[in-house]
């Protein structure tokens, strides 16, 4: 199975509130995992990637952080959301030969 679970599907949060988006994957152990953000009318921006438990690399300095507490769990967080954090967040796992499988995404609106 290559299933990737993301929740919630949609989220509306006020500015300054915290954020926690969760991604869990099924299938092989120790997958490489990724968080992407897609802002309105723009392409996908790689935010974080993880090659294992507790190993997080950030691609872009920002208001967000990521954690990987378990092998198949990848969490995207923020202590205080900004309006500019609004977007469509996608979790992905590497699926061999650089191919990626994506979750269904979480649409975050910061108001």
């Amino acid at each position, binding site marked *: 199975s290559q299933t990737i679970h993301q929740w919630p599907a949609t989220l509306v949060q006020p500015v300054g509130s915290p954020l926690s988006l969760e991604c869990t994957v099924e299938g092989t152990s120790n997958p490489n995992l990724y968080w*992407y953000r897609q802002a309105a*009318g*723009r*392409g996908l921006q790689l935010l974080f990637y993880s090659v294992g438990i507790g190993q997080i690399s950030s691609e872009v300095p920002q208001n967000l952080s990521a954690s990987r507490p378990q092998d198949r769990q990848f969490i995207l967080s923020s202590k205080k959301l900004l309006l500019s954090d609004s977007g469509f967040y996608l979790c992905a796992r590497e699926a061999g030969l*650089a191919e*990626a499988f*994506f*979750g269904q*995404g979480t649409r975050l609106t910061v108001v």
Partner: protein
Amino acid sequence: AQSVTQPDIHITVSEGASLELRCNYSYGATPYLFWYVQSPGQGLQLLLKYFSGDTLVQGIKGFEAEFKRSQSSFNLRKPSVHWSDAAEYFCAVVLFNNAGNMLTFGGGTRLMVKP
């Protein structure tokens, strides 16, 4: 630095017409190349990929793409577009480093299909 460019942000075609979506990459070697499709509010689905060998690759849903090294391009084509093809299409290349394989995406091309 590696980059992927999709010159067309929006494209509108009539149903039944042919389609070509452009993708250019900047990379020091022959990259691994991908096309993904995203339906509204959904995640991304892989259409096709190129690693090596035959430069014309076939994908799902009747799509194909041709790798042209001389032009650093990997354009996506379909001979006859269906209304259900309306979606956003992303070209991507993979960057290999010690931390794993990371996809770098182009800005996307939104395809609209007229009846």
